[in-house]
Protein backbone atom coordinates (compact mmCIF):
# COMPACT_ATOMS: atom_id res chain seq x y z
CA UNK A 1 0.00 0.00 0.00
CA UNK A 2 1.18 3.53 -0.68
CA UNK A 3 0.90 6.40 1.76
CA UNK A 4 2.03 9.37 -0.27
CA UNK A 5 0.59 10.66 -3.51
CA UNK A 6 2.78 12.88 -5.65
CA UNK A 7 1.36 15.50 -7.92
CA UNK A 8 1.79 15.92 -10.82
CA UNK A 9 2.53 12.42 -12.10
CA UNK A 10 4.71 13.91 -14.84
CA UNK A 11 6.21 17.34 -15.40
CA UNK A 12 8.19 18.80 -18.30
CA UNK A 13 9.85 22.21 -17.97
CA UNK A 14 12.54 24.22 -19.73
CA UNK A 15 16.05 24.18 -18.37
CA UNK A 16 16.54 27.08 -15.99
CA UNK A 17 12.94 27.13 -14.78
CA UNK A 18 11.84 26.09 -11.32
CA UNK A 19 10.14 22.73 -10.78
CA UNK A 20 7.60 22.15 -8.02
CA UNK A 21 6.32 18.75 -6.98
CA UNK A 22 3.74 18.09 -4.31
CA UNK A 23 3.08 15.18 -1.99
CA UNK A 24 -0.02 14.46 0.05
CA UNK A 25 -0.26 11.76 2.69
CA UNK A 26 -2.92 10.24 4.89
CA UNK A 27 -1.70 9.48 8.40
CA UNK A 28 0.24 11.47 10.98
CA UNK A 29 3.95 11.32 10.35
CA UNK A 30 7.22 11.41 12.22
CA UNK A 31 9.17 12.55 9.17
CA UNK A 32 8.87 12.89 5.40
CA UNK A 33 11.68 12.22 2.95
CA UNK A 34 12.27 13.00 -0.71
CA UNK A 35 14.24 10.73 -2.99
CA UNK A 36 15.43 10.95 -6.60
CA UNK A 37 15.72 8.00 -8.95
CA UNK A 38 17.46 8.17 -12.30
CA UNK A 39 16.33 5.69 -14.90
CA UNK A 40 17.46 2.16 -14.06
CA UNK A 41 19.26 3.15 -10.90
CA UNK A 42 18.76 3.11 -7.15
CA UNK A 43 17.15 5.87 -5.15
CA UNK A 44 19.16 8.77 -3.78
CA UNK A 45 18.13 10.43 -0.54
CA UNK A 46 17.63 14.20 -0.99
CA UNK A 47 16.12 15.67 2.16
CA UNK A 48 14.45 14.51 5.39
CA UNK A 49 12.07 16.93 7.10
CA UNK A 50 10.70 16.16 10.56
CA UNK A 51 7.13 16.77 11.62
CA UNK A 52 8.11 19.76 13.77
CA UNK A 53 9.88 21.48 10.86
CA UNK A 54 8.19 23.63 8.24
CA UNK A 55 10.91 24.25 5.69
CA UNK A 56 14.31 22.89 4.79
CA UNK A 57 16.91 23.80 2.18
CA UNK A 58 19.71 21.90 0.52
CA UNK A 59 21.50 23.62 -2.36
CA UNK A 60 18.90 24.21 -5.09
CA UNK A 61 16.30 22.17 -3.23
CA UNK A 62 13.64 23.56 -0.92
CA UNK A 63 11.17 21.35 0.91
CA UNK A 64 8.14 22.55 2.82
CA UNK A 65 5.88 20.58 5.14
CA UNK A 66 2.35 21.46 6.21
CA UNK A 67 1.20 18.88 8.74
CA UNK A 68 -2.24 20.49 9.06
CA UNK A 69 -2.86 19.82 5.38
CA UNK A 70 -0.82 16.60 5.35
CA UNK A 71 1.20 17.83 2.41
CA UNK A 72 4.73 18.61 1.36
CA UNK A 73 6.33 20.25 -1.65
CA UNK A 74 9.73 19.93 -3.27
CA UNK A 75 11.03 22.91 -5.21
CA UNK A 76 14.03 22.61 -7.51
CA UNK A 77 15.30 26.02 -8.55
CA UNK A 78 17.19 26.79 -11.77
CA UNK A 79 16.64 23.30 -13.16
CA UNK A 80 19.33 21.50 -15.14
CA UNK A 81 19.23 18.61 -17.60
CA UNK A 82 20.78 16.40 -14.91
CA UNK A 83 17.68 16.93 -12.74
CA UNK A 84 15.69 14.74 -15.15
CA UNK A 85 14.58 11.84 -12.95
CA UNK A 86 11.67 10.46 -10.93
CA UNK A 87 11.10 12.05 -7.55
CA UNK A 88 9.42 10.20 -4.68
CA UNK A 89 8.17 11.29 -1.32
CA UNK A 90 8.22 8.75 1.49
CA UNK A 91 6.70 9.01 4.94
CA UNK A 92 7.50 7.48 8.31
CA UNK A 93 4.28 7.31 10.30
CA UNK A 94 4.19 8.48 13.90
CA UNK A 95 3.35 4.96 15.06
CA UNK A 96 5.89 3.20 12.82
CA UNK A 97 8.84 5.51 12.26
CA UNK A 98 11.12 2.56 11.61
CA UNK A 99 10.00 2.18 8.00
CA UNK A 100 9.05 4.53 5.20
CA UNK A 101 6.27 4.16 2.66
CA UNK A 102 6.72 5.61 -0.82
CA UNK A 103 4.34 7.32 -3.19
CA UNK A 104 4.19 6.61 -6.91
CA UNK A 105 6.49 9.44 -7.86
CA UNK A 106 6.66 12.42 -10.19
CA UNK A 107 8.57 11.98 -13.44
CA UNK A 108 10.41 15.21 -14.14
CA UNK A 109 11.81 15.95 -17.60
CA UNK A 110 14.01 18.98 -18.15
CA UNK A 111 13.93 20.21 -21.74
CA UNK A 112 17.13 21.70 -23.18
Amino acid at each position, binding site marked *: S*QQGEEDPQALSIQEGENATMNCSYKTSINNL*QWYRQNSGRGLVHLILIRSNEREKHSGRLRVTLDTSKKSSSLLITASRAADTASYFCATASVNRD*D*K*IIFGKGTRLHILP
Partner: protein
Amino acid sequence: GAGVSQSPRYKVAKRGQDVALRCDPISGHVSLFWYQQALGQGPEFLTYFQNEAQLDKSGLPSDRFFAERPEGSVSTLKIQRTQQEDSAVYLCASSPDRGYGYTFGSGTRLTVV
Protein backbone atom coordinates in the same frame (compact mmCIF):
# COMPACT_ATOMS: atom_id res chain seq x y z
CA GLY B 1 31.76 -0.27 2.67
CA ALA B 2 31.14 3.07 1.01
CA GLY B 3 27.62 2.22 -0.10
CA VAL B 4 24.98 -0.47 -0.17
CA SER B 5 25.95 -3.28 -2.50
CA GLN B 6 23.49 -5.65 -4.11
CA SER B 7 24.14 -8.75 -6.15
CA PRO B 8 23.48 -9.94 -8.70
CA ARG B 9 22.60 -6.79 -10.62
CA TYR B 10 20.45 -8.79 -13.03
CA LYS B 11 18.88 -12.21 -12.65
CA VAL B 12 16.85 -14.19 -15.16
CA ALA B 13 15.05 -17.15 -13.62
CA LYS B 14 12.86 -19.79 -15.16
CA ARG B 15 9.43 -20.03 -13.61
CA GLY B 16 9.56 -22.38 -10.65
CA GLN B 17 13.24 -21.76 -9.96
CA ASP B 18 14.45 -20.54 -6.55
CA VAL B 19 16.53 -17.34 -6.39
CA ALA B 20 18.62 -15.65 -3.72
CA LEU B 21 19.36 -11.93 -3.74
CA ARG B 22 22.14 -10.51 -1.61
CA CYS B 23 22.50 -7.16 0.12
CA ASP B 24 25.64 -5.78 1.78
CA PRO B 25 24.59 -2.73 3.82
CA ILE B 26 26.81 0.10 4.96
CA SER B 27 29.00 -1.12 7.79
CA GLY B 28 27.49 -0.30 11.16
CA HIS B 29 24.01 0.47 9.87
CA VAL B 30 21.48 -1.00 12.24
CA SER B 31 18.42 -0.91 9.99
CA LEU B 32 18.04 -2.82 6.73
CA PHE B 33 15.06 -2.78 4.41
CA TRP B 34 13.91 -4.64 1.31
CA TYR B 35 11.59 -3.03 -1.22
CA GLN B 36 10.07 -4.28 -4.47
CA GLN B 37 9.63 -1.87 -7.36
CA ALA B 38 7.53 -2.62 -10.41
CA LEU B 39 8.08 -0.66 -13.60
CA GLY B 40 6.76 2.87 -13.34
CA GLN B 41 5.75 2.49 -9.70
CA GLY B 42 7.14 3.55 -6.36
CA PRO B 43 9.00 1.07 -4.18
CA GLU B 44 6.76 -1.20 -2.10
CA PHE B 45 7.91 -2.20 1.38
CA LEU B 46 8.69 -5.88 1.86
CA THR B 47 10.51 -6.37 5.15
CA TYR B 48 12.69 -4.67 7.76
CA PHE B 49 15.51 -5.77 10.06
CA GLN B 50 17.00 -4.10 13.08
CA ASN B 51 20.34 -5.81 13.47
CA GLU B 52 19.55 -9.52 13.08
CA ALA B 53 15.93 -9.24 14.19
CA GLN B 54 13.27 -9.20 11.50
CA LEU B 55 10.83 -6.74 13.03
CA ASP B 56 8.38 -6.42 10.17
CA LYS B 57 7.68 -8.78 7.29
CA SER B 58 4.18 -7.57 6.58
CA GLY B 59 5.03 -6.62 2.99
CA LEU B 60 6.23 -10.03 1.84
CA PRO B 61 3.67 -10.98 -0.85
CA SER B 62 3.54 -14.70 -0.09
CA ASP B 63 5.16 -17.45 1.90
CA ARG B 64 7.44 -18.04 -1.10
CA PHE B 65 9.38 -14.96 0.01
CA PHE B 66 11.85 -15.27 2.86
CA ALA B 67 14.48 -12.88 4.16
CA GLU B 68 17.25 -13.27 6.70
CA ARG B 69 20.08 -11.28 8.25
CA PRO B 70 21.69 -13.84 10.57
CA GLU B 71 24.66 -11.81 11.81
CA GLY B 72 23.14 -8.37 11.61
CA SER B 73 25.05 -7.33 8.50
CA VAL B 74 24.56 -9.06 5.13
CA SER B 75 20.99 -9.92 4.22
CA THR B 76 19.54 -12.38 1.71
CA LEU B 77 16.10 -12.26 0.14
CA LYS B 78 15.04 -15.66 -1.12
CA ILE B 79 12.16 -16.32 -3.47
CA GLN B 80 11.07 -19.89 -3.89
CA ARG B 81 9.26 -21.28 -6.93
CA THR B 82 9.41 -17.95 -8.77
CA GLN B 83 6.37 -16.76 -10.71
CA GLN B 84 6.14 -14.23 -13.52
CA GLU B 85 4.52 -11.70 -11.20
CA ASP B 86 7.73 -11.73 -9.13
CA SER B 87 9.51 -9.90 -11.96
CA ALA B 88 10.56 -6.54 -10.55
CA VAL B 89 13.52 -4.63 -9.20
CA TYR B 90 14.37 -5.59 -5.64
CA LEU B 91 15.93 -2.75 -3.68
CA CYS B 92 17.85 -2.99 -0.45
CA ALA B 93 18.44 0.02 1.80
CA SER B 94 20.16 0.63 5.11
CA SER B 95 20.15 3.43 7.65
CA PRO B 96 22.06 4.15 10.85
CA ASP B 97 18.91 3.83 12.97
CA ARG B 98 15.30 4.93 13.13
CA GLY B 99 14.50 8.39 11.86
CA TYR B 100 17.34 8.72 9.39
CA GLY B 101 17.38 8.80 5.62
CA TYR B 102 18.05 5.56 3.79
CA THR B 103 20.94 4.68 1.51
CA PHE B 104 19.77 2.46 -1.31
CA GLY B 105 21.66 -0.07 -3.36
CA SER B 106 21.36 -0.15 -7.14
CA GLY B 107 18.92 -3.03 -6.95
CA THR B 108 18.56 -6.47 -8.49
CA ARG B 109 16.40 -6.65 -11.59
CA LEU B 110 14.67 -10.04 -11.54
CA THR B 111 13.02 -11.33 -14.69
CA VAL B 112 11.06 -14.56 -14.48
CA VAL B 113 10.52 -16.26 -17.83
